[in-house]
């Protein structure tokens, strides 16, 4: 506050003092308005800072405002002959420092001015920080939305759980639960010329990268079923391998894959297995494993599988699952395990949906209050 006095004119001194007090009061009211005014609904630094500068400049008689560093901003024309110049530095989280400079031609900044400038500069740095945080939150929300969309797109590659193939002498059940919104587990089934074609697989890794590969593989399987349904499952796996090996290999991924067919007329079940486990065949309460005969697809190109052929009998059961099923921990850190898996299958009764529901309930009882750590898929075929 500048106060001038004129000797011999006491009335003028009072006038001047009054004027200075009014001026100071106006500046305080202006600053109060600046602080309490609603910020513009923008995440743009220029818009936010301009809203503050437009208010502060008349109060502080500013000619030039600049922001340099983590944010850039210029207001007013350049001032070479400024009598007042004041700069403060503010740290913007995760972005760096900004130097905020105020200049004016008319007079130097006094102590009162610098206190107000300090407050204005703080408002400006807060606006920049808030805008940055809002932008980050919006980016995160956008990414989550895109992830959810991608998850929906990849999940669409899987069969509609309500559309179960209707094949004479066979009931079917499948259940897939990804550990996250989406994952690399897959299954497929299709009826072609009265025969059932089915597959179950597990892409290495988790989340969206695995899901993208999963979606490609389900498309390849569908094409394989159509093109090789007069051949055997080993030809379907070989075709899928030819189509997806390089794509998987370049991504450093692979897929364990079992493909099968069931002919209800001859009651013949054929299965080819590239690196997948567990696959269990139950007859008369005894379980046997259908082991892999080749490494997973994507590891080494062109290794053929050897088909397992089974003449099915009444009440035989085929159960395929992914490792997320057998590796589910309980509260004691104990895995469900392949032995318990076999035992449960041995004692399961009823159609494929009944057996599938029973197996899922048993697993849920084991893993109660435990997080599902991996994608989990179960497929059951019951022969009647």
């Amino acid at each position, binding site marked *: 506050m500048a106060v001038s006095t004129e000797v011999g004119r006491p009335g003028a001194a009072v006038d001047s003092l009054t004027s200075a007090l009014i001026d100071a009061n106006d500046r305080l009211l202006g600053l109060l308005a600046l602080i309490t005014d609603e910020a513009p609904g923008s995440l743009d630094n220029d818009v936010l800072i301009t809203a503050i500068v437009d208010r502060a400049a008349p109060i502080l008689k500013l000619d030039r405002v600049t922001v340099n560093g983590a944010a850039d901003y210029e207001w007013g024309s350049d001032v070479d002959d400024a009598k007042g110049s004041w700069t403060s530095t503010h740290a913007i989280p995760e972005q760096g420092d900004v130097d905020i400079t105020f200049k004016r031609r008319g007079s130097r900044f006094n102590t009162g001015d610098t206190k107000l400038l300090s407050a204005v500069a703080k408002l400006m740095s807060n606006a920049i920080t808030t805008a940055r945080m809002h932008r980050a939150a919006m980016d995160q929300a956008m990414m989550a939305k895109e992830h959810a969309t991608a998850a929906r797109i990849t999940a669409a590659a899987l069969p509609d759980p309500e559309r179960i193939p209707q094949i004479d002498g066979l009931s079917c059940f499948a259940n897939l639960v990804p550990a996250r919104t989406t994952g690399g587990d897959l299954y497929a089934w299709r009826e072609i010329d009265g025969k059932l074609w089915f597959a179950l697989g597990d892409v290495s890794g988790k989340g969206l990268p695995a899901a993208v590969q999963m979606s490609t593989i389900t498309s390849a399987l569908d094409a394989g079923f159509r093109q090789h349904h007069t051949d055997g499952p080993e030809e379907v796996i070989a075709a899928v391998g030819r189509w997806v090996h390089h794509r998987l290999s370049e991504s450093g991924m*692979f897929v364990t894959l079992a493909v099968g067919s069931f002919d209800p007329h001859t009651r013949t079940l054929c299965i080819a297995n590239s690196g997948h486990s567990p696959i269990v065949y139950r007859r008369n309460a005894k379980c046997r494993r259908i*082991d892999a005969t*080749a490494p997973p697809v994507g590891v080494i190109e062109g*290794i053929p599988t050897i088909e397992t052929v089974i003449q099915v009998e009444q009440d035989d059961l085929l159960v395929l699952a992914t490792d997320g099923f057998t590796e589910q921990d309980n509260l004691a850190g104990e895995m469900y395990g392949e032995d318990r898996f076999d035992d449960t299958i041995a004692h399961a009764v009823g159609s494929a949906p009944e057996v599938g529901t029973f197996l899922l309930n048993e697993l849920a009882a084991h893993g109660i209050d435990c997080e599902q750590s991996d994608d989990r898929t179960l497929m059951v075929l019951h022969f009647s």
Partner: protein
Amino acid sequence: MRLVTEAPTTEQPALVLDGRFDAFETEKFRAACDELLAHGANSLSVDLSDVIFIDSSGLAELVRAMKHCRQSGGELVIVSPSDPVRVIFELTRLDAAFTIQDASVQAS
């Protein structure tokens, strides 16, 4: 998982792992492999004798490193896999894709 690098300046350095080798540990393994392969090694020994669990992400890292070695004319050798790891290699038939040795064979 604990990961120790042995003989890093030789032609065939060794990585010794223990604990769980799963999706949470793959970055550490990949960084160690890439570091060794970027500094002249074209073969790696990976000792899995004290690994108690391996999942598909861990297996995928081994496959990736194996391919990297073979592209450079070298080999990735799995040394003395523990029983749980050996079972997984057998179930997935990855034992047909990897060179697997016992520590005693390697030492000789």
